[in-house]
């Protein structure tokens, strides 16, 4: 087994043994799904709201729920804990590729993202939410959500490697977090006010959200889906380069 997979397996075990963290990762996004849908469902009835494509407002809110859940990864905080406790140095003294030390946790975040996203979608199904793009769309939806989780955790991991501080990681989260909300979160982009529409258009997360929404509300519409994968690919590449550079320069 490669060093990345060995460390990934370890990171998964670590996550499973911290069930309270997993619970919060699930609870907060589902809480927002219920609250936001409860508040806006009457304003946007499915029968008369064109952009809902015949589904309830919960279906429109599901992408932000999945993105929120994927953005609550604990990888960076576990890494800081490991640096502070000295175990990270123990791993650095082992002749494994340096990149394996950062990729291991990201592989685990990806696996965790697949499981959590699947559970959230399965919870949503009995409440009248369906995946209009079918089984392939379901797989793409879960894949996008999990990949976003990996990208987000990777950027947080960069902050952890640079600062070695839990406070800085938490602050970093607060900087990145608004990106999730500068998006067509409550209504489609063309219904936003002009400043918000400009902000959402400049925000790469918008394209990810629109791809996910398209998978839930429409048939497979590659014009909307591919930009979402393009965003995670581009941000993922930047994140990987930064992570590998930082671990190689770690002293």
């Amino acid at each position: 087994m490669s060093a990345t997979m060995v460390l990934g397996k370890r990171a998964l075990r670590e996550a499973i043994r911290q069930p309270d963290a997993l619970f919060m990762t699930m609870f907060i996004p589902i809480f927002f799904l219920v609250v936001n849908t409860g508040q806006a469902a009457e304003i946007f009835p499915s029968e008369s709201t064109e952009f809902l494509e015949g589904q309830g407002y919960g279906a429109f809110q599901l992408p932000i729920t999945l993105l929120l859940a994927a953005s609550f990864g604990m990888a960076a905080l576990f890494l800081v804990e490991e640096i502070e406790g000295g175990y990270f140095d123990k791993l650095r003294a082992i002749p494994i590729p340096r990149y394996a030390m950062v990729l291991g946790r990201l592989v685990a975040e990806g696996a965790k993202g697949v499981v959590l996203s699947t559970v959230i979608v399965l919870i949503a199904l009995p409440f009248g939410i369906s995946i209009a793009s079918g089984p392939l769309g379901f797989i793409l939806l879960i894949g996008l959500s999990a990949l976003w989780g990996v990208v987000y955790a990777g950027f947080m991991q960069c902050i952890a490697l640079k600062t070695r501080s839990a406070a800085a990681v938490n602050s970093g989260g607060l900087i990145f977090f608004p990106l999730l909300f500068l998006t067509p979160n409550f209504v489609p982009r063309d219904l936003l006010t002009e400043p918000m529409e400009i902000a959402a258009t400049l925000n790469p997360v918008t394209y990810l959200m629109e791809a996910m929404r398209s998978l839930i509300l429409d048939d497979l519409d590659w014009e909307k889906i591919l930009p979402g994968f393009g965003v995670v690919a581009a941000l993922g590449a930047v994140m990987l380069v930064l992570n590998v550079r930082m671990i190689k320069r770690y002293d």
Partner: protein
Amino acid sequence: MEMNEIGGPAVRAEGLVKHYNGRGPTVEAVRGVDLDVHTGGIFGFLGPNGAGKSTTVRMLTTLLSITSGRAEVGGVDVGRDPDEARRRIGVALQEAGLDPRQTGRELLVMHGQLFGLSAAQARERAQELLALVELEDAADRVIKGYSGGMQRRLDLAAALVHEPDVLFLDEPTTGLDPASRLTVWEELRRINGHGTTIFLTTQYLEEADQLCERLAIIDGGIIVREGTPDQLKADLRERRPGGEEPTLDDVFLDATGRTRDRAAGEVQEVAA
């Protein structure tokens, strides 16, 4: 003490320097350390707090970049071929750096796999090491629940997974109660008895006297004394005739220019 055959150098440092360049003035943590540690022995590296002990160990173990000079472990240049150097060394640093959410067995198996053993080989090696450090009963408990002494022993075991030529231990008994300290000493003698060279930093002079065949004392980033404990004591006796038989404490105080009052809290004696 069990003695080993003395061979070539297991650790060699020539003009080892480490500077830290931060926002303030450059800190010269290590200012030209030369070391020659023979294979098969237990080498003690002593010094007051902030003398450069841990910085030197971190450079020798590839964890810290070297500003200038060179270092070899097991004949491998640490700067040029860090991965090969890592294959030859085991490292247990000042804090028992362990993953608190794994069990002792899981941690050792994982380390075995990271050193290239198959899952079955890693499980077998983990079992051997758990027996060596007498942690078989606690093997399947998560490390968070281990006592300080148990964590130290597991840390030692983790450092031995790949049967390293040289074992670096940075203050392995700091913070342990006297009984746990004695247990660690016994482990170290046993490990050394199997032929592993041990490079040990400690603040406990009696520990150095009990365990080490050779010592170096570092102060202000340079080596100020080096030799066997008996040589160092004899040297001091020659320079200060007529007084009481010098102890290693006296050697340390003489070498670092400290008085007993000033040294209190920096270097401690242990009643073990």
